[in-house]
């Protein structure tokens, strides 16, 4: 009993420290950084790791205009998660009155000390169920995030920052998500005479997919016309 009491006494300084982290303050600092971005345009190279989809890399142009205009243009097919984390993360955090932010510890992500903040909606925020953010509290950047929605499950992102960290704009985003097994309609596969390859996932369990986006040539706050979001 004495030992438990001692252990509890030892933990008191840490409890005090955890309470000293104000998650909303950290989020506000990030929002403040991003609010400096009225619009941006950048080149993006996309790499795909989607189960049962063999697709080569593609280059695209990404356009953003505050508050919520977003477009990716490419000469070819590309896949993005249904809930686009590039748009979702900042939109989710924008209005701090919409959610409860809860500090839930610290973690080391890719060599960066981060605080973990959970976001729980208190007002309707689309189909958001939970948001979890790993925030570099020194540089005020979101290093990692997990956004869980009712319809599209959980989409995780890992961000790497470079010269545009002052605007909270990443140089690389790696999107990870669990996807349903892709079923090919037999009528269209028409694999006549082909020996069927062994199914690596016979139980139709969810498989993990990833999409990596490398951003270069950011052009920030150079006034992008609205029509650029409607034309291909």
């Amino acid at each position, binding site marked *: 009993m004495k030992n438990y009491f001692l252990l509890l006494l030892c933990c008191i300084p840490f409890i005090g420290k955890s309470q000293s982290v104000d998650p909303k303050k950290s989020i506000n600092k990030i929002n403040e950084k991003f609010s400096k971005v009225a619009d941006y345009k950048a080149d993006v190279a996309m790499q795909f790791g989607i189960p*049962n*989809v*063999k697709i080569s890399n593609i280059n695209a142009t990404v356009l953003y205009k505050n508050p919520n205009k977003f477009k990716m243009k490419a000469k070819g*097919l590309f*896949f993005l998660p249904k809930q686009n984390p590039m748009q979702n993360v900042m939109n989710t955090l924008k209005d701090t009155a919409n959610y409860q932010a809860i500090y839930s510890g610290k973690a080391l992500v890719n060599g960066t000390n981060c605080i973990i903040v959970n976001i729980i909606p208190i007002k309707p925020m689309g189909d958001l169920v939970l948001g979890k953010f790993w925030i570099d509290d020194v540089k005020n950047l979101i290093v990692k995030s997990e956004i869980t929605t009712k319809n599209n499950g959980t989409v995780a992102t890992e961000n790497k920052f470079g010269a545009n960290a002052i605007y909270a704009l990443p140089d690389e985003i790696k999107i990870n998500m669990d*996807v349903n097994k892709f079923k090919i309609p037999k009528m269209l*596969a028409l694999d006549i*005479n082909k*020996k069927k390859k062994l199914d690596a996932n016979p139980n139709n369990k969810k498989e993990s*997919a990833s999409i990596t986006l490398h951003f270069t040539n950011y052009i920030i706050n150079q006034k992008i016309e609205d029509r650029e979001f409607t034309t291909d």
Partner: protein
Amino acid sequence: MNNFGGLLINEFIKTFKKPRTFISFIALTILVLALQYGFYHDGKEIMKFFTQSLEEDFSINGNMLTSNFITYLILQFLIVQMPLLVTLVSGDIISGEAQTGSLRYLLLRPQTRTQIYFAKWIISMFYTLLLLIWLGILALVVSKFIFPNGDLIAAFSDGVHITRAADCNFKFLEAFGIAFLALGLITSFAMMLSAFAENSISPIIIVMSTVIIFTVIGTFELPVFEFLKPFMFTTHMIVWRDLFENPVPASEIITSCMVMFAHIILFFSIGLFHFNKKDITC
């Protein structure tokens, strides 16, 4: 050589004077245009059905109903039909003459039987090439006027493989090359049978029956038939599809091309040997 040239011209005129030679071109035109019309009308619905499972998790950006996709589908749908169209000419080229009695007069010419057989084979292969070029024009060129250019999304049993638009033209060129080898095999097979037969119907029926039987056996996923698949030429005839796999299984494609080439030599040799020995009674 001049004699052989004359023989070639003679065979060319005989083949292209027959109305039945153009049946294949008309049939192919109707088939391809019907498919293009169908996809122009209902293509978006079909694509939805195709990507339904993917769209549960992803938003797919870009046009999927492209001219390259339509060309690929047309080629895929015509796997079974093309051999029939090719056989209409090559299956008739010797037996047709045997049936009408003109073969006897042909063999009275100073050219050797080998030269005559070779000239007929060249004309049959030329007809096959023309048919493929016509298919290429209809499928690839006409589709480009109807559908937008873009990436090709091809379905295989292990998933979808996407070929970028910039790579498609060269891949289609290669695909048509392999298809020529495949149809050349059918041409040689039909001509070999034509050397054996005394009427035109038998070679056509035998070729089509063989293609249908091999294709049906090939679609069975029963282990008992697995060992047979490498020995059936239909297994190798559709290897052009593998060009659209990512990465391209080059060794499989080369092996299949060699198998098809070996078949062509085998069928040609058997046909020629029999034609040289054949007792012409009609």
